[in-house]
């Protein structure tokens, strides 16, 4: 499938295989392989992670999704973002969040904010019900 000309691929970075796994789920649902690139923190120190992200930014990435707010992935993303005000970092990604972003219009300047709201709203606790005696 051809790459969407209106939006450069976003980068998803996470612990171990998190990014590859969650993006494979996005692809399975949307059929779009061009929306997200992936990166892992595995085996990397913070400087190497930051270098990897700076390289991605130099390559056109302006949206970075990371898994854990307290994680090294987010720290590295925030450092890489520091000299690039056009770059947005979203932490705590989930599948509903990424799917919302995937389906947002490339012209939507608030796609990340809307996706975060969708991700929050998608969480729920479903308790089993007991039948009355």
């Amino acid at each position, binding site marked *: 499938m051809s790459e969407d000309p209106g939006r450069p691929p976003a980068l998803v970075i996470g612990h171990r295989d998190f990014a590859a796994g969650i993006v494979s789920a996005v692809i399975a649902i949307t059929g779009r392989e061009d929306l997200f690139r992936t990166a892992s923190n595995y085996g990397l120190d*913070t400087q190497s992670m930051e270098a990897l992200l700076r390289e991605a930014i130099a390559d056109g990435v302006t949206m970075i999704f990371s898994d854990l707010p307290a994680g090294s992935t987010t720290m590295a993303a925030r450092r890489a973002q520091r000299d690039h005000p056009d770059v947005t970092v979203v932490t705590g990604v989930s599948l509903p969040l990424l799917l919302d972003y995937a389906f947002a219009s490339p012209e939507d300047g608030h796609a990340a904010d809307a996706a975060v709201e969708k991700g929050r709203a998608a969480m729920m606790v479903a308790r089993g019900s007991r039948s009355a005696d």
Partner: protein
Amino acid sequence: MPIELHRIDDRLIHGQVVVGWGQPLELRFLVLVDDEVASSEWEQELYRMGVPPDMRVEFVSVAQAIEKYSSFVADPKPGMLLTGDIDTMARLCAAIPALRRVNLGGVHHRAGRAQKLRYIFLTRAEEDELRAMAGRGVEISAQDVPAARVFPLDAILEGEANA
């Protein structure tokens, strides 16, 4: 002992520290010892972002850590002291006789380092520094998360890589 763990981890405050160790040890404070971070408000803000509201974090230089160490261990709440490299921890151990147990939690790949464990890569100089610390009576072991196997220094240096 209120400082439950003295950890060397080049990622400093991150998931393994805050969640992996923080929850089972019920850590209530972190002491991040790093001269550069201690002098940068921006870096401190970045690390604070990753710390839950019920966990306090102190950013101190090596000199401040040495000066304030007795107050850290006097804190009744459990805490963790973190350095980003071996040299910083070696300086602390040399100046603080009570600091006699060190956890290697993450020293990742960089040019010139050889892999010892999945999460430990060392230069020859770093190996020598660890041996010197052990020679001064510091017990050194590697363990990235609480449920993982503990490797004593000999096993680390022998390079039980990927074990």
